[in-house]
């Protein structure tokens, strides 16, 4: 086996392999994982996060602007403290609201960020004050039945 | 210290666990000699070569090559010594993935900084010495047994060693190849000033070319001498070996119960 031909094939092989890896990383996967250097973190408290998981997207106007970095339970206020890691490129007013939404009817849950009107922007370690909990199906059904029962009783 | 003996072996013992292969070997090989070591299959001849080459360490006794005790050398010292030794393996042990030329050039490329032209000349010279300069571009798979062994010989002398060890160089060769190989061993030893230690059980070829012979049986040297002394020897073992007799000190029959009993000819049981 001629040495130069061999080297050529090995080179092609390695290039193809790296190309496959890049294809997987960029075209197949989402490499928009927001990393620590170009992001800032804010906290939002919820009474019920439903099925929200870490690494769930944070979307505003339907566009992914960040990821859920961490979810903790605050033992004193008995609330969930969710840390949102937002892309540094996007600044939101201090009175923006965070709601837990579901993509589609039964899809995975994400955080929808709706901008407020304040001229002062959110900085790192700030807290989003206006939050809306996840819609829990059981509560919804319970409310519906209760409402129906209420309608029925005064006769 | 210019000692006449290149290889000195004193009281050498070696074995695996309880199985002793060599019990007490005393042997010397002078510079420029062709020394043959003979004995039955399994008597430890190849083990002896491995001990000389440092691939095995003796249990007792000492092997000295050019004054250095082989068993006590560290890895670096061992490799240094081996660069001055060549070994011819039983079926050549050529590297099958490279050509004849590359095989002979292997040590030159690994151990020296010589430029390719110099290496080319040296390789062709060695191949010429064994008569295979025209086969330089063949692959080991295309060679006959005898040719492969000659290439291996060229490879063994590539770095002009002071000692060459031969493991059964005559095994399985046709009469012509036998003659060629024996002739080569003698000629190379004389022209290059080497010392050759040949392990073999080919008695006739060896008697033609060696200076001194040692016989090993049961882990010790049972006989030694020059070619003439051996030919004239009256020792039963040597006699049986040299004449190729079927029965003698080395019995024909493998140990077994009496023949009659095996065939149940005496006193049939129930």
């Amino acid at each position, binding site marked *: 086996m001629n040495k130069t031909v061999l*080297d050529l094939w090995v080179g092609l092989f390695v290039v*193809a392999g790296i190309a496959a*890896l890049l294809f*997987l990383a960029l075209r*197949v*996967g989402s490499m928009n994982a927001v990393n620590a250097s170009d992001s800032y973190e804010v906290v939002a408290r919820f009474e019920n996060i439903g099925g929200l*998981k870490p690494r769930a997207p944070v979307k505003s106007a339907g566009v992914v602007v960040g990821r859920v970095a961490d979810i903790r339970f605050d033992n004193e206020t008995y609330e969930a403290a969710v840390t949102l890691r937002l892309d540094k490129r996007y600044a939101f007013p201090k009175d923006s609201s965070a709601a837990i939404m579901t993509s589609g009817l039964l899809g995975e849950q994400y955080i929808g960020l709706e901008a407020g009107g304040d001229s002062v922007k959110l900085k790192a370690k700030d807290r989003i004050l206006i939050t809306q909990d996840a819609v829990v199906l059981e509560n919804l059904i319970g409310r519906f039945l209760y409402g129906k029962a209420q309608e029925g009783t005064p006769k | 210290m210019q000692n006449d003996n290149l290889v000195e072996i004193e009281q050498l013992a070696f074995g695996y666990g309880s199985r002793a292969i060599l019990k007490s070997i005393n042997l010397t090989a002078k510079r420029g000699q062709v020394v043959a070591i003979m004995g039955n299959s399994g008597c430890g001849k190849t083990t002896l070569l491995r001990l000389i080459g440092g691939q095995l360490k003796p249990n007792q006794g000492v092997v000295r090559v050019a004054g250095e005790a082989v068993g006590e050398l560290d890895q670096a010292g061992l490799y240094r010594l*081996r660069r001055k030794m060549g070994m011819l393996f039983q079926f050549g042990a050529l590297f099958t993935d490279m050509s004849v030329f590359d095989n002979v050039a292997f040590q030159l490329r690994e151990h020296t900084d010589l430029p390719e032209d110099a290496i080319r000349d040296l390789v062709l010279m060695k191949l010429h010495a064994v008569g295979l300069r025209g086969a330089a571009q063949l692959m080991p798979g295309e060679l006959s047994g005898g040719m492969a062994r000659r290439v291996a010989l060229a490879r063994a002398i590539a770095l002009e060693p002071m000692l060459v060890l031969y493991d059964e160089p005559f095994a399985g060769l046709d009469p012509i190849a036998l003659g060629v190989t024996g002739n080569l061993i003698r000629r190379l030893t004389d022209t290059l000033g080497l010392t050759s230690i040949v392990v073999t059980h080919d008695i006739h070829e060896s008697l033609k070319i060696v200076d001194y012979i040692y016989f090993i049986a049961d882990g010790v040297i049972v006989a030694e001498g020059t070619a003439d002394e051996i030919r004239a020897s009256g020792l039963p073992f040597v006699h049986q070996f040299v004449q190729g007799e079927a029965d003698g000190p080395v019995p024909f029959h493998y140990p077994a119960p009496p023949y009659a009993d095996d065939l149940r000819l005496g006193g049939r049981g129930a």
Partner: protein
Amino acid sequence: MLRQAIENLGNRTIQGIWRMGFAVRFFVTILLHSGTAFSRFGLTIRELYFSGVLSLIIILVSGLFVGMVLGLQGYETLQTYGAEESLGILVALSLVRELGPVVAALLFASRAGSAITAEIGLMKATEQLSAMEMMAIDPIARVVAPRFWAGVISMPLLAALFSAMGIFGGYLVGVQLIGVDEGAFWSQMQNAVDFERDILNGVIKSVVFGVAITAIALFEGYDAPPTAEGVSGATTRTVVTSSLAVLALDFVLTAFMFRGLN
């Protein structure tokens, strides 16, 4: 009778443990003698050709077929939930997380692993390794270590190629053949496949598999009895042992990597 069987079992177990100790020592020796494999990288490149390039065809073709089957089967099942548009996610995640690294590893073990074992076994049986030793050249450094590193480098590349081909196969079947929406196929896939969690983990898996397979293949070759049956038995052992090792390691790694999904 029974006592004999127990004795045999005990013996075989002790032999197995002793052999494993020897194998670990061999592995450490390879690592320690790896300097030459890198300083004379040409040796490793040569082995990269024999292990990697020569495995390309089987990897690419198998990847394509596996991806196509995933496309078909996946569509069948997803259709019942009206979730055909998630076909891209199914194909991509199955391949990148599991099928790519594992199947590529199994194929590598049977093609390249057995070849390595046979080669080393044969070299040992024909005394080529001994000859090298007697020429003051360390056979582990010159013959064994380059093959090891070539295997470790080849494996993740082959796994990535397998996954990429598989996704392409799934695309061919799903989008071109069956008619799943092309945009949905790729965009849903992109949203669901995470670089760190899925792709990187897949790469880590394939590197671990590469180490395991190549080390086993080299050890079996080096330890094989120097006869024809010895080498052929060693080749079979390589394929069986490394395949089992890959599957076992896959379980361990998967449990480790994907347990924190909540």
